[in-house]
């Protein structure tokens, strides 16, 4: 009788152990899934001739003018490569994300640098509550002045960052496409922070972008460009299968 009870206990114990093991393993798999999740890649093209970009005269800031002496810089409102690839376009999922995927905050901490009296990058993607750092690599002072829509959920701030000052760490609390950033000391400095929910990508010099870790599903993709506006298209992402989406903006 006693022995039987002992066997019974052992059976229950081993069953419990097996259950726990299975549960842990299944949890691990769930966690690991997005890493092998599909990505969306594509190219942004500009159709037509890129509008003339005005040269920037930095003579009022000799330290910055000296940096660009060999390669004078222009405004960056439309930056197109030789193949027509359009840079600085933010592509994000505007519809179709599940609640958990929508509220996931990217863990990376992108850097918004002020270098040669320009913003690097010129356009930066962010999730709400994702931290970013503002740095100053110049020998001169800047004031960093992001201007979200007045009366909206994000609020304007304006901070001085002298040369050699430590980085400014900050976040935006709500999605906003897009927040204009300017420096009042150097009125030519202009950039955009694009705050969107879920994974996003920003196009590079050749116009290619990549959105990583997109869970399988049907989505609406939106591409945003600072002067050419937005474009959308539908896309379906299958598990573990990379999807592609290309956009073409017409030059105004």
């Amino acid at each position: 009788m006693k022995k039987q009870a002992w066997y019974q206990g052992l059976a229950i114990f081993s069953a419990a152990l097996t259950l726990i093991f299975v549960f842990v393993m299944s949890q691990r798999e769930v966690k690991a899934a997005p890493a092998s999740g599909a990505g969306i890649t594509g190219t942004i093209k500009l159709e037509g001739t890129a509008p003339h970009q005005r040269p920037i005269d930095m003579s009022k800031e000799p330290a910055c003018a000296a940096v660009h002496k060999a390669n004078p810089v222009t405004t960056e409102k439309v930056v197109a490569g030789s193949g027509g690839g359009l840079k600085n376009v933010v592509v994000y999922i505007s519809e179709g994300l599940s609640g958990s995927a929508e509220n996931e905050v990217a863990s990376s901490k992108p850097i918004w640098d002020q270098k040669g009296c320009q913003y690097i990058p010129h356009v930066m993607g962010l999730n709400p509550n994702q931290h970013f750092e503002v740095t100053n690599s110049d020998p001169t002072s800047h004031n960093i002045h992001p201007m979200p829509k007045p009366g909206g959920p994000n609020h304007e701030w304006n901070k001085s960052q002298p040369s050699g000052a430590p980085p400014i760490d900050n976040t935006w609390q709500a999605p906003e496409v897009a927040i204009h950033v300017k420096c009042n000391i150097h009125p030519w400095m202009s950039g955009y922070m694009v705050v969107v929910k879920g994974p996003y990508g920003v196009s590079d010099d050749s116009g290619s972008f990549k959105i990583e870790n997109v869970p399988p599903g049907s989505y609406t993709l939106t591409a945003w460009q600072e002067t050419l506006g937005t474009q959308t298209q539908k896309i379906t992402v299958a598990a573990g299968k990379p999807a592609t989406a290309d956009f073409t903006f017409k030059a105004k």
Partner: protein
Amino acid sequence: MRTQHLNFIACAVAVLAVCSLSSAQVTKYQEDENLGMEAHVGKLTGHAKDAATNYRRYCAGCHGDLGDGEGENAVWLDPKPRNFTLATFKCRSTPSGSLPTDEDLYNTVGRGLESSNMPSWNPLSDQARADLVAYVKHFSDRWKTEKSGAVIEIPPEPAVNAERIKAGQALFQKLECWKCHGVEGRANGPSADTLTDDQNRPIKPFNFHDQTKFKCGAEDRDLYRIFMTGLDGTPMPSFSDNVKPDEAWDLVFYLRTLQPMHTQEKEIAKQLGLKPINPNAPAPAAAPAAPNAAPTTQPQSNENKPQ
């Protein structure tokens, strides 16, 4: 034919009346909901609902019935009246981007804003001004979801001396205040003409050379506060992240030497034979004198090059 016309006009009037009535009801409802707003200043508690009459009598002409800064006088004014629905305020004791304290707004109502059409409302009772602060707050929902920022404390003012004034001048150059305010504080720096406010309207930097009172007060403490918190909605940034309290006082003392009235600081500057900064000098002009100064204002990277 005549009666047809009259009929048509009567119909139009009726439709318009119904439309305006329904829209008025919507705003009335929202108003009632927000009129519970309070303001706390010292022992005073301001109630928005008690300020409605005073607001309409004294404030609405410029700030508008809806608090949007679009009162009937607004078109004639520069700078424009504040739009309370945006809840962005220049005169704060709190960090850039955060809401001011009730006391900040109370002080602004009492003091008025220099170089603008906003007068001092001190003739109204303390209670009436506290009520008005609550009324100003009731125009934006931001006050329901957010608290005021943490107050940037102002330590007691130290004694002024020559070293502090020189250190302040070095900061004036290093922080590049002169880019807008000009090397002599005449509001003629290289960026001065390009400045715009958050509504993209042209705005001028403060002219230290001509003006005695500042936008948010006339005392040394006010100058300290303006500089540390910045003036939100304008190009004036906050310096509290990068400037220590002692350095901020040095700068206050130096700025006092630029002003038109007689000041103790001006006297000291005269004795020193202090010259305006040279913006083309590679390092702060007053740097050689700085090592003797009590506060350490110079980062290691600065080279001590005499002019």
